[in-house]
């Protein structure tokens, strides 16, 4: 079978005893299947059957998953209310920045929401900001994790520029732009029948953050004491690990449009319920023209309302079905026998002999 040189035919076994001169043979490579590149290997071959079945299989798996994901998304009830324009008093509509920056104007605002469909508890309350670059490099870097975690590291403010220290040089805890610009709108909810809906703000952050990243003995210090007040204030008596709004806020969002969890309403809402929201519109998004939205949403096993995953699955599945059909058709029209030597290049180029 081997038509190669004679040493090729000599093979590994027959040479074992040859060579009287042992020193000379010391350079002889040792035989092993590894060094001779003869390891047993699995060599899958793409046959038409395989190709068509793989595409079909992917289609069969993907389309139902897509449908399930779409269904899950459709089960989610979501109420979105954009309020940043509506909450500006009409006389200040031309000077929204003046309005928001004036501490003397009351920022209270009332919104009425209508429940479009039954909402089962828990109902998650989010605020959604738009055009807010929480992912800006300057912003993302402006924090110090050591300081947040460890009481003794309060002086660790590296990276927190320009919200590092107060003007007299004492460190700010928590330092940095992220904490400084803490979101500070508040919402309170009442049902149409006057029943107050309590918003549970416990456990809205990741447990690991509370337990390990934000120290239970670290208290806010010098926070928002400087000349420039950014966003929300923190109660200096409550340790950081319990400041869940801060913890949620400090998880910087990936995109300029983001939602953050505000709390949970642990009551079922019925279709056509009206909900009155009394909110304090404190946070300045007017400077950069960002929207603010209040979102009430239930969740499914997949999370919130988003058809994208389902659509993606169905399209991929669809493409695979299409390809499976295409390959089947082309294969039926122009079949090729596997291992047909007439497809070898030397049989094509030379014509008939």
């Amino acid at each position, binding site marked *: 079978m081997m038509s190669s040189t004679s040493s090729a035919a000599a093979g590994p076994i027959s040479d074992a005893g040859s060579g009287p001169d042992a020193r000379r043979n010391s350079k002889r490579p040792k035989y092993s299947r590894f060094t001779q590149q003869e390891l047993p290997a699995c060599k899958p071959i793409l046959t038409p059957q395989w190709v068509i079945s793989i595409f079909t299989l992917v289609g069969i798996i993907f389309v139902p998953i897509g449908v399930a994901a779409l269904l899950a998304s459709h089960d989610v009830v979501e109420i979105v209310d954009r309020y940043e324009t509506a909450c500006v008093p009409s006389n200040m509509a031309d000077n929204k920045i003046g309005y928001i920056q004036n501490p003397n104007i009351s920022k209270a605002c009332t919104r009425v929401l209508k429940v479009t469909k039954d909402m089962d508890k828990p109902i998650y309350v989010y605020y959604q900001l738009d055009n807010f670059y929480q992912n800006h490099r300057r912003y993302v870097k402006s924090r110090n994790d050591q300081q947040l975690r460890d009481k003794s590291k309060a002086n660790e403010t590296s990276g927190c520029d*320009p919200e590092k220290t107060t003007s007299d040089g004492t460190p700010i805890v928590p330092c940095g732009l992220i904490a400084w610009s803490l979101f500070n709108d508040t919402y309170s909810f009442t049902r149409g029948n006057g029943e107050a809906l309590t918003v549970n703000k416990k456990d809205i952050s990741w447990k690991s953050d509370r337990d390990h990243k934000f120290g239970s003995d670290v208290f806010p210090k010098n926070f928002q004491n400087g000349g420039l007040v950014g966003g929300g204030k923190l109660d200096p008596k409550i340790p950081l690990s319990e400041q869940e709004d801060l913890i949620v806020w400090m998880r910087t969002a990936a995109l300029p449009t983001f939602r953050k969890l505000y709390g949970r309403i642990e009551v079922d809402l019925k279709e056509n319920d009206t909900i009155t929201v009394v909110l304090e519109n404190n946070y300045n998004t007017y400077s950069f023209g960002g929207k603010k939205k209040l979102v009430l949403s239930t969740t499914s096993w997949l999370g919130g309302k988003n058809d994208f995953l389902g659509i993606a699955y169905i399209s991929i599945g669809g493409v695979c079905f299409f390809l499976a059909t295409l390959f089947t058709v082309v294969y039926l029209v122009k079949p090729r026998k596997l291992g047909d030597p007439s497809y070898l290049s030397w049989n094509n180029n030379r014509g008939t002999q």
Partner: protein
Amino acid sequence: MSRGKIRAKLRQERLRWSKLYTFNCARSNAEPADATEPFNGLQGPGFSRTVRCNQPGLHGRKPLSYPSNYISTTKYNIITFFPKAIFEQFRRVANVYFLLAAILSLTPIAPFSAVSMIAPLAFVVGLSMAKEAMEDWSRFMQDMKVNKRKVSTHKGNGIFGYRQWHKILVGDVVKVEKDQFFPADLLLLSSSYEDGICYVETMNLDGETNLKVKRAMDATLPLEDDMAFKDFNATIRCEDPNPSLYTFVGNLEYEKQVYPLDPSQILLRDSKLRNTSYIYGVVIFTGHDSKVMQNSTESPSKRSSIESKMDSIIYVLFTLLVLISMISSIGFAVYTKYGMPHWWYLQPKNASSLYSPSMPALSGIFHFVTALILYGYLIPISLYVSIEVVKVLQAMFINQDIQMYDEESGKPAHARTSNLNEELGQVDTILSDKTGTLTCNQMDFLKCSIAGVSYGVGSSEVEIAAAKHIASEISGSPGHNCFQADYWDKKDDKSSVIELESGVTCRIEKDSKTKINGFSFKDDRLLEGNWTKELNPGTLLMFFRILAVCHTAIPEVDEETGSVTYEAESPDEGAFLIAAREFGFEFYRRTQASVFVRESYPNPSEREFKILNLLEFSSKRKRMTVIVQDESGQIILLCKGADSMIFDRLSKNGKIYEADTMKHLNEYGEAGLRTLALAYKMLDESEYSTWNAEFLRAKTTIGPDRDAQLEQVVDTMERELVLVGATAVEDKLQKGVPQCIDKLAQAGLKIWVLTGDKMETAINIGFACSLLRQGMKQISISTMNTDFLNQDAKKAIQDNILLQITNASQMIKLEKDPHAAFALIIDGKALSYALEDDLKHHFLGLAVDCASVICCRVSPKQKALVTRLVKEGTGKITLAVGDGANDVGMIQEADIGVGISGVEGMQAVMASDFSVAQFRCLERLLVVHGHWCYKRIAQMVCYFFYKNIAFGLTLFYFEAYTGFSGQSVYEDWYMILFNVILTSLPVISLGVFEQDVPSDVCLQFPALYQQGPKNLFFDWRRIMAWMANGLYSSLIVFFINIGIFRAQAFRSDGQTADMAAMGTVMFTCIIWAVNMQISLTMSHFTWMQHLFVWGSIATWYLFLFGYGFMSPVISGNAFHVLSESLGPAPIYWMTTFAITVACNVPYFAHLSYQRLFHPLDHHVIQEIKGLRKDLMDEHMWTRERSKARQETKIGFTARVDAKIRHLKGKLQRKVSSLGGISSMAS
């Protein structure tokens, strides 16, 4: 001096050799020049060297300060290693870029932490430097091996002792013994022969295998034993060190006289003393001053064509990088100027210049640098290191290949540089040396023709195979061509008798008797004394006597066994003597005046032949003659020489056998044998003495026309000869050479032979290797006779050669027969014109059209020039293979240099990129390893660009969402690990273990090799397609993720995805996508590939899990990311799944389409193998194997085809002439 001392044993050996040599070695009787009149040339610059013999201590110090004999070929030493090696490393553009990035990463401009930039760079540079250090170390060890060789040196007071080579100093007197190399350039003082000659083998210098004679001056002859050097004192003034091997100018001041020196007294380092017991010499040039070291050029660093192409891809990517960085920085400037003043949460008023809205242009420029670093993932730093690792491992497999291990020399193949592995798969032209590469420089007496009868039944392989094929066809075995691939296998038949067309019956038998070196003759008619029963025993006797007497060899009798070995000047002569001995004419003793032969038949007797004259062989005369007187007083002239020379000199009645002999000579020549014709002439006493008187007179003439006169006198004697017969000696090819050439030719490679030998020899070898065959049109280009060289003559020669070239090209163009093959044979002189600028393109054009090209009598420099011409003229990859120092230039010039390490002498190997023990290993080196390595590297590089584009572009897209601020969505550690750990091992396993077809299939289907030279796997279309695939993957990964994790909760308990979560999901998707992609690319999964591919994915999860459990100070927002936030979320797993599939659908569809409808050769073969069709349908398998070769006109198989066509044509003619039955042949 001590001339009178007699050592009897020595005397016996010491023949007055100068008596044997009638012309060339005739000593000039010029008196030594007067001491007051020193040689003029030795005053000026360039001739300042002074050597005080026997006072070595003087030369190390000022003012001479000559270097010691220590040689070093290393690139670095301990001190220079770091600066030099680092400098080397940063000559790579990419490394400079990474260095700059690393430096900048220390400033706040950098988007990443400093360690993430510096660590990979340090790793890459460190690894490459470690490799350099290793290679340099092995060079150092080689040097040390040479430096530690020992030679006997004069230590004072006439005592000689062994000393290591590197301790030899200028002025030392050394004693070199037989078969030792000279340790430095020496001046020959005396030798074991009385007249101070010695034989030198200069194979390492110029590749010529014949021995050269060097002779000492008369003045120094008395220095013939150790004690003579006690008070020896002389001064040599000579030229400064220079690289010219064939010149030497200097003089020797000895005993108050000045003697001029010439090159014939100079023994060069790395040549070898042969046939001489010992010589004494004084060291003139040591170490790097020696001529051979002056000749050595630093080996150029070579890069494979894939690597150069990779550079252009890097440039493309670099352009892309600059482009997106520009977009990014412009975007950033715009955002900073118009957006940032409104983003109060960034406190724009307090921003440094990096983010200053008041200076957007400056910020933009800073950001440009940031972006260059951030998108640096487009230019994979790890590509270099991975390629380096892969190549080292590939080289290891080459070194470990047991089938390239040569049992005889005990040497495995060795990849000396690992840079060129993949280049092995793209070779187009092989330029090969002859002696020592194709042949082993050993002659075997194979056939002879005596008195018009051809003796010797060893038949050439071509004849056997062709006969076999015809036989199988006639006996009705099915299919055309179907057994061609098996010619070599079928030789295993115990014995077979084949009726050849010529009527000679050939018997092939396995060698059962122990073979005599140099004698493969088999014919019972002549052996064991049977020749006495032949028709013409007289002629036979004369034939054997010529063999036994007409030569210049010296017998060496082993005193214990009584067996005789011969020291001959050329290996042919040795073969004749052995043949004569086997026929019963044992030459056993030579004295000054006689040759003694022991004849066994018809009656055992010892005969003495008095040698009256010896007219020696020269390349011009092409014949050798002795005039002897036998015991009966009869004077006989015995002559052997080239057939053309002998046939011109035959007497009328000496031509009886001319026609038959001529026919036999042609047959032998076609079988690749070296032939010589033998003749004799009986002389009268008177006739001889008249001639001899004339001869003596001519010999003693002093004057310029002495040589011409001598030649004329000799010529008158060598006439009217009687032809006896002819010999055919096989210049033994190395094992497996014809087979290897056959396979290489079938793989579509062109083979050129460049040899220093003469044309006849080269042509014989061409026939033996099937590079030439009968029916091939030989185009021979040579110069006209040029005795006087003036300007016009030069021009005339040029024109003449141009004419020859254009005529030949024209002839080829007009040729209609598709089977016609042409061979170009050109000699060195013609080549020197053909290589001039205005002719070389014509020459190359002609050479490319010819099936085989043989250049003879080429100098080492011409070899290099031819190589360069082919390399640059055709733009294809060339491979040069050679064994001697004369091949070094060619080996260095070619894209790949291969040295033959089976023989002694290391120059070629030292200069080479790969070394193999035998020529035949080339087949496996190219067809198996080259093919594999090419595909591996090509696929690997393509994949590398794919994966880095897929990854790098996601960073860019994300930028657009962050106001181009330079924030990356991934954690720093993800990015570091991406190239270093998470995707590197699968690529390396692709680069090291991938096999499209197993090695035996590579060898069976040489046509597969053409995938490399045609560059099917690394053309721009393919590279671009891979890049587009990367672009597609990056889009899919990024935008599907953005779509899925937009704003809403991603878990059932309401949390939304932050940057860390999103980055982690995207990264997971990329890891899956690229690893799935590579597993689609692979066609060969051993447990290693499984481990690496699936292991990489598993490692990612393990890392993520572990990283999440590290202190949040380290892991930041990735703290508990897998265990707490992503792991429990079904959407995470579903996204990964969907994106992995989506990324791979197009490539999978492409693969399937190509495979199902436009399969490449290896696909079909994989299927055949996979379905075990090769076992079920052996007929088809054999047929395809025999067809799987490139259209070639050289090589054994092509030759057999030609022979078959020839025989068939003949048969057809015969048949049709017989009865017009034409149906049979169709």
